């Protein structure tokens, strides 16, 4: 169960847009434990499920812009400026 905080809203389904590669997998508790270990992030027993659910929400979000085709010349600005 994700925490009750702010920016964790699941997006609504959005149509259109090409998908490059297959959609990202829904992360499991085991995925979270492996990723956390690789990062050196200790997890207390029983905490992986809630993190996995929050991460899954972020990856659902991510799918929305990962699948959106961008021109090759669009670069991530090193510092965001208008």
């Amino acid at each position, binding site marked *: 169960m*994700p*925490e*009750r*905080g*702010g*920016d*964790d*809203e*699941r*997006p*609504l389904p*959005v149509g259109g847009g090409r998908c490059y590669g297959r959609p990202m997998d829904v*992360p499991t508790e085991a995925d*979270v434990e492996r*990723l*956390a270990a690789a*990062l*050196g*992030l*200790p*997890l*207390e027993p029983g*905490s992986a499920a*809630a*993190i*996995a659910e*929050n*991460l899954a*929400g*972020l*990856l659902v*979000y*991510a799918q*929305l*812009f*990962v699948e*959106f085709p*961008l*021109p090759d010349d*669009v*670069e*991530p*600005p090193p*510092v*965001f*400026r*208008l």
Partner: protein
Amino acid sequence: MSVGADLTAAGIVDAIRIRRTSARDVVTGVLDRIARRGRMLNCFTRVLAEIAIADADRIDRIVATGGDPGPLAGVPFAVKNLFDVGGVTTVAGSRIHAEHPPAQRDAAAVAALRHAGAVLVGCLNMDEYAFGFTTENTHYGPTRNPHDLTRMAGGSSGGSAAAVAAGLVPLSLGSDTNGSIRVPAALCGVFGLKPTFGRVSRAGVVLFAGSLDHVGPLARSVRDLALAFDAIQGPDGADPDCDARPAEPTTPGLDQGIAGLRVAVAGGHFAQLAEPAAFAAVERVARALGASRRVTIPEVQRARAAASVITSTEGAFNHLDDLKRRAKDFDPMTRDRFRAGALVPAAVYLRAQRFRAWFAERVREVFRDVDVVVAPTTPYPAPPIGAPRTTTVDGVEVVTRGHLGAFTQPWSFVGLPVLSVPIAGLAGAGPLPLGVQLIGAPFMEAHLLRTAARLEAEGVVAAPIAP
């Protein structure tokens, strides 16, 4: 003589300059109000009475000797507790930072207000590390909405909005990453300005998500908001993201009206999934401004998604060391969201930043033909403290807290200036206020303040002290 809670910052300055009152009397009155109402609202986490009285006495001495006490002479203000205040520990809504040593000096925006003569009276409650829209802080307790104590003040600058709405101070500072000035300003019924990205220095502020963070003022009048903004805007070499563009004072042109400004209403995403009262507020503002044109911003849902991923990722890496060493000391409201953000692949984060560059260009195209866009601030009035995780809007289930930022997040994502104006008396909202966003082109805060001043003069928007 004593000065009432209903006096604006501008009114206080005038009263002090003509010696109708003293800064000490003003500040003493404010400290008394905080003592009487502050505990119930839980908006202050620290009151700086001794420092405030000493500063007030300094202002009075300047006035007594015929000196210039500054454009905000004797105006009491308070700041979200992520702003450094010299000699005070910056807790940023957390238990972990409460163990840090006191700050060496004031944050740039705090120093600027004090330099302008304003008197700092305390530090205000917030969501831990600014990660939330509600100020339901587990460590320090929830801040209560002055219009209904059972309801949220909004967040993450909830203390900043509640303190102003209740008349405890006429002015406060907050920060805004995805809506954290505008959401609480709307729910508490005050004016809140999120300036252009880079317009106000963030030096001395505990950042949440550095590429999205802004700081700005909240007030009960447009003139007060402009006075505060003019005091804090401008370049600062201590903040690498602060723009080199010189300050452009907005107060002198505040009463110019809106002649020549092209105003449009945001459609599409911004006309969906909100309670009728939120749309009624927009229509009321649009009618007053004679705005009949609608504009549509493309791909707003993807923009929100990218903003959320950038926020979670940058936020997690700001606190990674503490997440590794002492995760148990984080607020349960933020802990697992931060840890999930730490696990987002770098390729996804960079893709979000690339999408952001694309989206910024689409928004820029809209502002070639328009000067001010009108949109709701929140989709509904303040929910109850401890509200269920989801709620239903227009037949669709949404996340109660996250959806509060549905209309604010897309604009801050691309750094545009936004002013949330308060409206009350809307059918379906009861005594609770709502907000309407006025969005402008980069560095065009003056357009927003002029528009808000016109709405205020016509009585369309107002921020009376919560009873």
